[in-house]
């Protein structure tokens, strides 16, 4: 009887633990954590394949800090702009874990083995003692050319345990939209507007000139009297010469010279 009770108790415990595990998974799914831990297994060749194993001592969390998303389901990254995320890492086990690298890449959404853009692989080499947490920062810029298309974003964190076994935690492995940034006013459009304004002004000036000349021809039928009178015909009489601008001493000098003509001078000399 006692044995039966303990058996029941044990089975319940296991069931409850399983339930908790399942609940945990749902919770993590909701919070955008993808912690499918995988182990790099060396095969005969140089190729290494990824093999799913049971969850390890590590617990990871991904949080995009730039841009900030209200809905966690749809991630939209601006092309050509900085995107930043933080990775939280907790060592739940009883041995040290060493963080190795953190990398991100854009993949072809139909085939995640096809790399479109690789971002920096950050070398970390950080030892996380048991029960401790660490935060890692990462920033990247999706290329301008990829605007307006969906891409697979893959973020991987590599770490190793005390035995040197390498593990890769896939922090994010889903399709994201790369969106085009709507700029308020760029230089190109500004100069286009300036050019258009200049063209308008030029057109107005031309139109005014044209209308003026047409109007003059029609009304005057030639040059009016006033303009004829003002026509330059050369200096005919000395009275028309305006000597205002000449300094007085120069004028006096000139008058003196005029009064005594060269002939008179000569006559005087001969006398």
């Amino acid at each position, binding site marked *: 009887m006692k044995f039966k009770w303990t058996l029941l108790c044990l089975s319940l*415990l296991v069931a*409850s633990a399983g339930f908790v595990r399942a609940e945990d998974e749902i919770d993590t799914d909701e919070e955008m954590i993808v912690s499918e831990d995988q182990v790099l297994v060396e095969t005969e060749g140089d190729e290494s394949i990824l093999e799913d194993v049971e969850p390890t001592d590590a617990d990871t969390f991904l949080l995009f*800090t730039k841009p900030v998303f209200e809905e966690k389901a749809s991630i939209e990254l601006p092309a050509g702009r900085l995107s930043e995320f*933080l990775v939280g890492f907790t060592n739940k086990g009883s041995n040290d874990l060493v963080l190795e690298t953190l990398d991100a890449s854009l993949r072809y959404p139909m085939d995640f083995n096809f790399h479109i853009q690789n971002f920096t692989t950050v070398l970390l080499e950080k030892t996380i003692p048991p*029960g*401790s947490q660490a*935060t890692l*920062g990462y920033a990247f810029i999706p290329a301008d050319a990829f605007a307006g298309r969906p891409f697979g974003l893959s973020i991987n964190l590599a770490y190793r345990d005390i035995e040197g076994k390498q593990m890769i935690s896939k922090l994010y492995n889903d399709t994201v939209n790369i969106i085009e940034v709507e700029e308020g006013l760029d230089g190109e459009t500004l100069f286009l507007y300036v050019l258009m304004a200049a063209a308008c002004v030029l057109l107005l000036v031309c139109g005014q000139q044209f209308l003026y000349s047409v109007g003059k021809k029609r009304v005057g039928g030639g040059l009016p009297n006033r303009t004829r009178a003002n026509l330059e015909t050369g200096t005919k009489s000395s009275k028309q010469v305006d000597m205002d601008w000449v300094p007085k001493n120069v004028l006096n000098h000139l008058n003196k010279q005029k009064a005594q003509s060269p002939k008179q001078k000569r006559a005087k000399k001969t006398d």
Partner: protein
Amino acid sequence: MYSLKSFIIVALVCTSLTVSSLDTARLLVSKQVLNKLLVQDSDILVKYTIYNVGSVPATNVILQDSGFPAEAFATVKGNLNIRFNRIPSGANVTHAVVIKPLTYGRFNFSAAVVQYKSSENAEEPQFAISSEPGEGYIISYAEYDKKFSPHLLDWFAFAVMSLPAVVAPFMLWWVSKSKYELILKQKREKVSKD
């Protein structure tokens, strides 16, 4: 009957354990250096942001940054050790410190250390380290000045040197202009008298 009691106790312990492991605060701490150019003897802004992504508030959060040794950095404004009583779930806290490097050369900006109580009844504090801004090169003030100084004294000297070349022709023009204007004025006065 005895075993039933033990079962209930075990079940209670189990549920309490699972609850405590689920409902914890979780802090992500980012440390950023906001300056693009690190210059000796000028201010550097360091920003710490703490995000609580857990489900319960984090209490007694202590942020300590011992990454700026006193012989190489002076704190201009703010505190490198700070305590937040409570960071609610889903909230974030920003803390900024202004420091001044006293020397120049390469410097590794390392992580700050944070400790907090992950739940109300947690006994042991949770330790965490922030993100690392990484290595930066602090340039000397002379180097910075060579590139970015406004060269006010140089421009003043240039102005003084170029002054004769501008003023001499102007004076010549001015003298002749005033001479002819005086004549015109006298003429006008004469006309008005007549």
